[in-house]
């Protein structure tokens, strides 16, 4: 187990280093001079020099990369070009809102997906299955920047039940969470259906049925626990879709999270903040996936003995 953990940790460290390099390089991918992009081509020479100095752009790229790494290790993500506030402070203000939205969306997706997937699997080929899978196909196909405005139109404007935007109390999170959770629920329910269908053919299910267990007992006690493993991995991977989707959902609902901060900073050309947002979101994703793998290996000994996932 220890060997597995170490090798997984090592590969995560390599990925983290790669991610940091790529995020650092983002600003250098700008065609032309990044300072021109930030200030506009008509900026004063003195302003350009000051910005170049502030961002360290007058040094060789390798030196810049090293100092980026050493600053990161000290928790220094630089200052916002726009507000001059340290980026870490900006992030600290925004992270709770995004975590709240992501967790509630994830819970909501599970609450919708599990019954849908189970009902579909138990009624394979019947009307229930077709309806559930039709609904999930619809869920995959409706983008959050369309679902969000439609929900606002129905529940906030016509019915007046829920706030249009902002983060103020429990009611304000309902629409963003539905918007963000729908696609995840759709993918998850399809996955639950297909994994359950595979498991339901196993011998131990037949034995449980032969013992006289009820349909529901068989599913809850025998099929679901065994189908859970791939579902846990999928949840880890789908967290990425959730975090990426949060950027758009937060923009639609003016949810003051890290996704909205990313877009606002792109619009203001505040690149240090953009870099930091992308870095924090990606690193969260990497770490969560590492933890998912570790939990998976802890539950299922075949994986840690195999040594690779």
């Amino acid at each position: 187990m220890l060997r597995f953990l170490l090798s997984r940790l090592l590969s995560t460290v390599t990925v983290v280093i790669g991610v940091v390099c790529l995020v650092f390089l983002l600003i250098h991918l700008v065609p032309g001079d990044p300072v021109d992009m930030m200030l506009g081509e008509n900026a004063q020479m003195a302003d350009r020099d000051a910005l170049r100095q502030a961002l360290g752009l007058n040094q060789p790229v390798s030196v810049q990369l090293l100092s980026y790494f050493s600053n990161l290790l000290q928790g220094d993500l630089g200052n916002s070009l726009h507000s001059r506030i340290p980026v870490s402070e900006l992030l600290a203000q925004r992270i709770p809102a995004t975590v709240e939205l992501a967790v509630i969306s994830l819970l909501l997706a599970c609450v919708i997906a599990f019954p849908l997937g189970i009902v579909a699997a138990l009624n394979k080929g019947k009307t229930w299955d077709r309806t559930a899978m039709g609904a999930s196909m619809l869920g995959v196909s409706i983008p959050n920047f369309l679902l969000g405005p439609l929900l606002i139109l129905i529940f906030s404007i016509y019915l007046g039940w829920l706030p249009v935007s902002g983060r103020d109390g429990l009611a304000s999170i309902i629409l963003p969470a539905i918007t963000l959770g729908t696609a995840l629920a759709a993918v998850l329910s399809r996955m639950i259906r297909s994994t359950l269908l595979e498991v339901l053919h196993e011998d131990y299910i037949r034995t449980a049925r032969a013992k006289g267990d009820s349909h529901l007992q068989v599913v809850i006690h025998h099929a679901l626990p065994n189908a859970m493993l791939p579902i846990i991995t999928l949840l880890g991977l789908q967290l990425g879709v959730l975090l990426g989707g949060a950027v758009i959902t937060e923009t639609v609902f003016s949810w003051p999270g890290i996704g909205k901060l990313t877009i606002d900073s792109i619009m203001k050309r505040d690149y240090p903040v953009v870099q930091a947002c992308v870095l924090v979101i990606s690193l969260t994703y990497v770490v969560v996936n590492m933890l998912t793998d570790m939990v998976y290996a802890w539950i299922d000994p075949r994986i840690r003995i195999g040594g690779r996932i």
Partner: protein
Amino acid sequence: MSRYGLSVWIIIIWILGSFVSQLLPLNISQVELEAILQGPTLEHWFGNDDLGRPVFDRLLSGSYTSCIVALTVICISVITGTVIGTLSAYLGGLFDQVVVRVIDIFLAFPGILLAIALAGIMGPGIDNVVIALSVVGWVGFARLARAQTLSVKHRDHVQAALVLGSRQRKIIFVHLIPLISAPILVEATFGVASVVIAEAGLSFLGLGVQAPDASWGSMIRDGTRYMLVAPHLVLAPGVALMVVVLAVNLAGDRLRDQLDVKANIKEGET
């Protein structure tokens, strides 16, 4: 007509309509002050937008944007990804290790985030959208092609070709890639749906096509401001987008069943 037949027809109409629309005299930027926010009429089937421009014409023009971006991005991604993935699995060694690490690093960026950051930093515009989505898109195909090649590269006919002295290029392009094309074709179909949503998403955020050009995403964004008085501004591009994505996803499902490709764990990722 079965729903798969219907979805194929929708895809054909989408692609044909997109290209034919380029030959039509569309008035995508003709401002008509007296027709501002007007609902559907006989003359303008889908009404007019906040500047009095005909929504139908803009919808057709937006269809071209989504179609051309989706097809270009998928072509670039499939070709780059398949060649890199197949080469990596076939050659093995250090090259393979480097490719695997690079794939891992790219996959560490969740969903559309890297594309948003790239498009945002490179500046708005359709070219940058294509670049940003291609940079993100090739990785999935490379991973799939690599995994598939690993499973077929020890087959007898590949070994036979090697023993007969075939060139590596011939082995890869004639003996390996055709064998792994079924799952890649299925993945590419789902990829089209993802790219259509991603392009509209970037345009929705203001990072895609710029006015006066139309994109379904930017039409939805502009329409949300007038949702109460003119819901057709959001509904027309929204329904068009959903119908196309749904049709492509259904076609992908059908293709997967017919070609008997096992469901990929990341299906439906957008």
